[in-house]
C-alpha cells in the first residue's frame, strides 16, 4: 500500500485514475507502464478537464483544412496558398527557469508548425508578468525576453506581434504563450502524423536524447508550491541552431516526398509521439529504445521514454526511401536513426536489448483516458450594473500622467526591440503596430493580432472571452483585413475549483460565440490549467491569435498620425460601457453596463473593413486600454500632436472609460465627404460617429481637459519602463 501511494505521487496519478488503469489493463501497471500512463493521462496531454468544453468550439468552415486533430490547424487562403498556425503555453517552465522555459516554448511551437510541412514565417508572443516590485520579477522578465529573443532570432523567424500584461495575480505564476505561423506554397503538401504502411520504418531525427525535461508534462499539470525550485531538472534545454537545421532538413525531406508521417517530440517526448502516431494511424509500432541516440549512456528506458529533450522528431518512411532520407539529414549535419517499424497489430511494442519491456494498445489508453466534467456554475455577470459608477476624475491631466507612469501604460519597446522583426524580408508592419503584417509570395498581406485583455477578464469572463476574439478582429478590420481563423491558449487556475471552471466555461462559450458570429473558426490551441501557486490563482487568461487576410498591400493605415491637418473621427458602437483599465490604476472595482450583440458587432466590423478598403484612411486605431485619451496619445508617436474637442455630452470620465467598441480614424480634409458618406450608410443600433479634432501641433490637447506638451508626455511614456524596472533600463 505504501509503495502504491508513493508511485501515485511520483507519477502524479489519482487513486481513481489508478483504478481505471487496472480496469484498462486487467492488472496492475508495471515498469515503464506507470510512466506511460502518467504522461498520456496528464492534463497537458489528455485535456481531461477541458475536453468536454473544447468540443463546443466553432471549429470548421470551408477554409479549414485541419483543426485540432493535428499538431497545428491549417487554413486555405485560396490562390494555392495555405497557412498553419497555433499558440502554446510554456508558463510553468518559464517561471522555474525563465530563459530556457521561454526559449523552448518558442522551439516547441515552431516544431508544431514545420511538422505540418509549413515553413515558419512569423512569431508572436503573449506575456503576462507580475508587479515590478515583486522580488524575482525583473529577473523573470529579463530571462523570458532574452529566451524568446535568443531562440527566435537564431532560427530566423521574425517576431511580428505581441502583447504584454502586468498584474499582481501573475506574481507567482507568469504566462508565456508563443504563437507561430507557417506558410504552404502551391507545391507544398500538408503532412500528418498518423503512422501507416506495415513494414515502414520508424526513424528518429534531430538532437540526441538527454535527461532534461523528464516528467515535464506532468509537472506542467500541477500547481506550484514552495518546492518549485526543485523542479528545475524537469526543464528542457533548447538549442535554436539545431532547430534551424531541423527546419531546413525536414522541409527538404517532405519536399522530396520521403515522409509518410511525422510528429515532433513535445510534451512527454518519445512516449506521446509514438503512442499518438500509432493511435492516429490505427496501426502498431515497435521501438527499440536502446537504439535511440543518447547524450548520456546511463539513461534508463523510462527516462528515454519521458525525456523532453528538444529539437527531435519521429517520422515514418518507406524502407526504399531510407538512404535518400539519411543523405538529406546528413547534408544538414543531423543524425537519422531507424528505431523501429510499423506493425500490423495495434500495439506499441517497446524493446530494450531485444527484450520486450512493454506492449500496450495505444487506442485503449487514449480511449479510456479519464474525462472530467468538472463542477461549474452558470455564469452570473456579477459585475454588471444598471448605472455605471463614475470614475470621478477630478484632474484629468494628472490621471493621464499617472497612467503613463504605470507599468501597464508604459512603452514596451524595450521588449520587442530585442526581437528580430524583419528576418525573412517579408515584414510590412512590425511589433510597434497594433497588427503585425507579413507579405505572402502572392503579394497578399497576412495580418496577425494576439488578444485577451486580462482586466476585462477580471471584470467578466464571458465578455472577456468574446473580447479576446472581437478586439483583435476590430484591429484587423481597421487595417482592411478580414479575420479568417483563430488559435487560442487557455491559461487558467485550478480546474478542480468550481469558480475557476465557471470562468473557463463562460469564456470558452463567449469566444466560440464570437468566432461563429464572424465566421472565424478556432483551428488549434492549447489549455494550461493549474496556474495556481499556494491557492492563489492567476487571472483567467484565454489568449488568442487571430489571423486575417487582405488582398493587396495598398492602403494599410498606420497606427501613427502621418501628417498634420488631418481630420480625426471617433467611430463608436456603444454596446458595453466599462470603467476599463483605468479603474485598476485608480483603485476602483470593475463594473460594466450593457451586453455584446455579436451579430451587430460582426456587421459593424464588415462596415469598418469596407470603409478602410474604399476610402483612403491614413491612420487608424482601436480604442483600447485606458480609453480615448491614451489611445489618441499612442497615435502621436511620430511627433505629430492632436487638437481634440470632445463632442457635446462627453465629459472627463469619457476620456478614461472604455466602451466596447470604439475606434479612431484619420483622413485628409479632401476626403471628408467620401468618409462621411460611407459612415452615414452604416445603419446599426447604437452606432454613432463623431468628428473630434485635427492632427498637428506639438502638444496633446483635449479642450478644457488636457493641454500638455507632447515632448514631455513622450518622455514620460518612454521612461516609464525604466522607472518601473530600474535594472532593466
Amino acid at each position, binding site marked *: 500500500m505504501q509503495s502504491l501511494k508513493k508511485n501515485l505521487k511520483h507519477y502524479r496519478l489519482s487513486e481513481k485514475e489508478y483504478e481505471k488503469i487496472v480496469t484498462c489493463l486487467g492488472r496492475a501497471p508495471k515498469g515503464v507502464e506507470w510512466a506511460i500512463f502518467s504522461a498520456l493521462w496528464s492534463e497537458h496531454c489528455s485535456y481531461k478537464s477541458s475536453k468536454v468544453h473544447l468540443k463546443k468550439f466553432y471549429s470548421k468552415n470551408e477554409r479549414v483544412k485541419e483543426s485540432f486533430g493535428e499538431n497545428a490547424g491549417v487554413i486555405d487562403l485560396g490562390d494555392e496558398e495555405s497557412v498553419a498556425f497555433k499558440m502554446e503555453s510554456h508558463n510553468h517552465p518559464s517561471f522555474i527557469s525563465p530563459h530556457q522555459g521561454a526559449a523552448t516554448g518558442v522551439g516547441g511551437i515552431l516544431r508544431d508548425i514545420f511538422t505540418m510541412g509549413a515553413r515558419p514565417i512569423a512569431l508572436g508572443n503573449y506575456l503576462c508578468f507580475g508587479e515590478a516590485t515583486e522580488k524575482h520579477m525583473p529577473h523573470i522578465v529579463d530571462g523570458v525576453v532574452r529566451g524568446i529573443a535568443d531562440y527566435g*532570432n*537564431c532560427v530566423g523567424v521574425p517576431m511580428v506581434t505581441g502583447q504584454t500584461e502586468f498584474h499582481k495575480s501573475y506574481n507567482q505564476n507568469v504566462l508565456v504563450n508563443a504563437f507561430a505561423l507557417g506558410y504552404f506554397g502551391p507545391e507544398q503538401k500538408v503532412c500528418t502524423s498518423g503512422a501507416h504502411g506495415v513494414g515502414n520504418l520508424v526513424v528518429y531525427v534531430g538532437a540526441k536524447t538527454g535527461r532534461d525535461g523528464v516528467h515535464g508534462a506532468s509537472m506542467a499539470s500541477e500547481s506550484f508550491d514552495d518546492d518549485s525550485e526543485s523542479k528545475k531538472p524537469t526543464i528542457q534545454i533548447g538549442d535554436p*541552431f539545431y532547430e*534551424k537545421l531541423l527546419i531546413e532538413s525536414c522541409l527538404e525531406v517532405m519536399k522530396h516526398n520521403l515522409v509518410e508521417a511525422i510528429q515532433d517530440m513535445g510534451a512527454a517526448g518519445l512516449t506521446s509521439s509514438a503512442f499518438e502516431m500509432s493511435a492516429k494511424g490505427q496501426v502498431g509500432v515497435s521501438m527499440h529504445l536502446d537504439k535511440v541516440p543518447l547524450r548520456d549512456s546511463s539513461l534508463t528506458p523510462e527516462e528515454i521514454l519521458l525525456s523532453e529533450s528538444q529539437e527531435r522528431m519521429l517520422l515514418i518512411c518507406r524502407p526504399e526511401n531510407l538512404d535518400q532520407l539519411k543523405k538529406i539529414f546528413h547534408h544538414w549535419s543531423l543524425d537519422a536513426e531507424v528505431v523501429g517499424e510499423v506493425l500490423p497489430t495495434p500495439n506499441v511494442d517497446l524493446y530494450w536489448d531485444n527484450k520486450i519491456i512493454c506492449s500496450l494498445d495505444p487506442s485503449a489508453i487514449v480511449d479510456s483516458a479519464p474525462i472530467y466534467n468538472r463542477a461549474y456554475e452558470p455564469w452570473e455577470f456579477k459585475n454588471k450594473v444598471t448605472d455605471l459608477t463614475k470614475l470621478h476624475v477630478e484632474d484629468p491631466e494628472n490621471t493621464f500622467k499617472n497612467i503613463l507612469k504605470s507599468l501597464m501604460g508604459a512603452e514596451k519597446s524595450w521588449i520587442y*526591440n*530585442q526581437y*528580430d522583426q524583419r*528576418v525573412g*524580408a517579408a515584414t*510590412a508592419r512590425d511589433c510597434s503596430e497594433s497588427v503585425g503584417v507579413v507579405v505572402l509570395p502572392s503579394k497578399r498581406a497576412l495580418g496577425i493580432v494576439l488578444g485577451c485583455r486580462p482586466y476585462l477578464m477580471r471584470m467578466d469572463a464571458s465578455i472577456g472571452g468574446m473580447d479576446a476574439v472581437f478586439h483583435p478582429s476590430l484591429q484587423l478590420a481597421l487595417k482592411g483585413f478580414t479575420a479568417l481563423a483563430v488559435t487560442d491558449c487557455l491559461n487558467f487556475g485550478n480546474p478542480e475549483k468550481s469558480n475557476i471552471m465557471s470562468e473557463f466555461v463562460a469564456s470558452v462559450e463567449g469566444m466560440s460565440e464570437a468566432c461563429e458570429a464572424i465566421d472565424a473558426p478556432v483551428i488549434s490551441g492549447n489549455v494550461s490549467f493549474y496556474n495556481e501557486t499556494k491557492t492563489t490563482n492567476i487571472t483567467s487568461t484565454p489568449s488568442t491569435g487571430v489571423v486575417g487576410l487582405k488582398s493587396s498591400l495598398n492602403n494599410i493605415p498606420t497606427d501613427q498620425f502621418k501628417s498634420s491637418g488631418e481630420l480625426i473621427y471617433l467611430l463608436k458602437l456603444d454596446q458595453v460601457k466599462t470603467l476599463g483599465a483605468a479603474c485598476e490604476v485608480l483603485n476602483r472595482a470593475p463594473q460594466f453596463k450593457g451586453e455584446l450583440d455579436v451579430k451587430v458587432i460582426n456587421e459593424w466590423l464588415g462596415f469598418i473593413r469596407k470603409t478602410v478598403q474604399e476610402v483612403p484612411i491614413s491612420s487608424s486605431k482601436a480604442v483600447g486600454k485606458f480609453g480615448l485619451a491614451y489611445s489618441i496619445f499612442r497615435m502621436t508617436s511620430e511627433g505629430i500632436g492632436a487638437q481634440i474637442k470632445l463632442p457635446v455630452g462627453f465629459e472627463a470620465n469619457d476620456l478614461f472609460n472604455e466602451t466596447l467598441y470604439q475606434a479612431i480614424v484619420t483622413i485628409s480634409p479632401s476626403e471628408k465627404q467620401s468618409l462621411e458618406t460611407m459612415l452615414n450608410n452604416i445603419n446599426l443600433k447604437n452606432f454613432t460617429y463623431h468628428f473630434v479634432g485635427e492632427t498637428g501641433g506639438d502638444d496633446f490637447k483635449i479642450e478644457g481637459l488636457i493641454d500638455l506638451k507632447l515632448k514631455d508626455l513622450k518622455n514620460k511614456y518612454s521612461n516609464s519602463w525604466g522607472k518601473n524596472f530600474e535594472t532593466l533600463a
Partner: protein
Amino acid sequence: MKRVGVVRFLGTNCDRDVFKAIEQVGHTPEWLWYEDSFEVSKYEALVIPGGFSYGDYLRSGALAAKAPVMNSVSEAAKKGVPILGICNGFQILCEAGLLPGVLIKNEGLRFIDQWVKLNLQTPLKSWGGSEIDKCEIPIAHGDGCYFLEPESLKKVMDQDQIWMTYDKNPNGSVADIAGVTNKNKNVAGLMPHPERAMWDWMGSSSGTNFFEFI
C-alpha cells in the same frame, strides 16, 4: 546581369532574403555550400548573408571562418572579386582575417532590432557606389559593436577603409563604424541589412542600391 555567389553555412538565416534581393534587381544568384570549394572565376561577386552560423558558438563567425568554402572566398578576395558580408557575414570576414577588426557584444549587452541612418564615408566600386549615402536600413544584431585598437583604427582611417558609419551610434561601435572595407576596397562588411529594405512596404527601398550596383 551578373552571377553572384551566395555562401550558406549551417545556421545562416538571411540566405533566402539575400538571394531574393539579388534576383529582384536583375542579377543571378547561385548557392555556395560551406563544405565545398568553388571555382572563383565563375562569379562576378560574392555575398555572405547574415544569420547565426554554428549558432554563434565559440564566437560569432569564428567557426564559419574555418569552413572549407572560405578557402575559395579568400582566393576570390585576393583576385579582387567584390565580396560583401552582411551582419554575421561581416563577422565571418573579420574572423577570417579578410577585414580588419572584430565585432563584440553591443554596448547594452542586448540584441537590437531597429532602423538606422547611415553615412557613406568611402564610396566603393561595388555595393551601391556613392548611391547609398544617407540610406535608412535596419539592424538586427547582438554582436554588432565594431572594435579596433587605437593604432589599428588610425591605420584603417588613414587608408580610407571606413565604408559606412551610423548617424546615431546604436551599439557602441568605435568611431560609429557600421561597415568597413579591406585595403584593396573589394571586400566589404556591413552590420545593417540592406536586403530588408528592398520595397517601400518594408519601410524603405534604399537597400536596392547595394545589390543593383555590384
